[in-house]
């Protein structure tokens, strides 16, 4: 199926990455992944995903740098971004939102179901 929405997952923890990947694929999305910020940015430019699930603390390039890069490139490609965070610091969340993040997930507090619902709300 070619009309599947494309989600890019950028998350450095392998287990969490795999869990979201399986969950989102089962929910009917096409999912690609990146384990660090630099690979993530490359995957954004190349794959042009419809939505990005973005961790904030990442090796090589952090989530904020990616948000900035996406914002600069908005006129060409404007994906929806949900920030994945485990910090829950409102200063971080606000900063992410001013940089264009549409929603955020505190990983330890949200279930897979919550995440899929948030994704669907932005995509469908």
């Amino acid at each position, binding site marked *: 199926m070619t009309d599947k929405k494309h989600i890019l997952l950028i998350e450095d923890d392998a*287990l969490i990455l795999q869990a979201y990947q399986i969950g989102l694929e089962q929910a009917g999305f096409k999912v690609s992944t990146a384990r660090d910020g630099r690979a993530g940015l490359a995957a954004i430019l190349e794959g042009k995903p419809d939505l990005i699930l973005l961790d904030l603390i990442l090796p090589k390039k952090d989530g904020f740098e990616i948000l900035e890069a996406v914002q600069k490139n908005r006129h060409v490609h404007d994906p929806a971004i949900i920030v994945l965070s*485990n910090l*829950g*610091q409102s200063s971080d969340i606000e900063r992410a939102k001013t940089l264009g993040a549409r929603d955020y997930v505190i*990983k330890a507090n949200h279930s897979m179901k919550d995440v899929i619902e948030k994704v669907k709300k932005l995509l469908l």
Partner: protein
Amino acid sequence: MEPALDPSRSLQFRGNFVLQTMLSVSIFIIIVLLISAFCIAFVIQWMSDSAKTTKTESLEKDLITIVSHELRTPLTSIKLYTEMLSASPGIAQNTDLRLYTSNISIATQKMVRIVNNLLNVSCLEAGRLRISPVKTDLSSAVRSVLKEMKPFAQLHRCHVVFHQSASALPKMKLDPDVFFHIMSNLITNAIKYGRPGHGRININLQKITETNKKFIDIVIQDNGIGISTEDQSHMFKKFFRAKNATDVETEGTGVGLFVAKRMVELSGGTIWFTSQQEVGTTFTVRFPSTGMKEVTNTESLSHTEKHL
């Protein structure tokens, strides 16, 4: 016979006198020196002791923050995979396996809550918690807390009654997360330490005017095990748990009331209680009628949205 004044003796006497004076002066000086030496030693000891405590305390706080943050990542994985397990057909159709996975998820949820509680403690202690009040209808805020607590109350067969005030209350400024946290802490305690099987909790909202200032009191009254007189003064201390509370419920970190009090006070309110053992406890939270005061800090609460 009294001897006549003997000049030599008088000299000796004067010499003795001088010697004695010198002796007592030097003893005095020695005592003063000793005392000051003791004082200095004591102060040095005290200073190094207090330095040590602050150092240990800050180490402890750092440790709490680091460990809690680090725990969240593997906990997230456990939580996600348990969720996936319980949704998979092989498990969903097997009663035993369904029970096991459901128990794993209950335990995980509990652990997430403990970690969040510890994070909230360190955040409050470091003075980093932000309070962002918004205009809220107090009655509906209380009702939404009660809605969340309903399964927990039912589990303990506890009857929670919210007495709506007859006269309408004006809207007040409340930080929804902080308010939820304070209230759910107090109500959880009232349920947990209520009369077994016959728990009853009354919640009242009252307008109070004291020395020309207007307040709103939120009163939570239970008919539970109460708090002994000797434990009452320790109730808001960190990690403290009352003896009769540990008899009822061995689990508990003893940070609930500590966190609640810090939150109430940070946002400009006061909290107190009256209690009688085997009769019940009444907690009162008082805010100015305008509501919570804003505190511009960096961190928001690490809360868990659902209670067990």
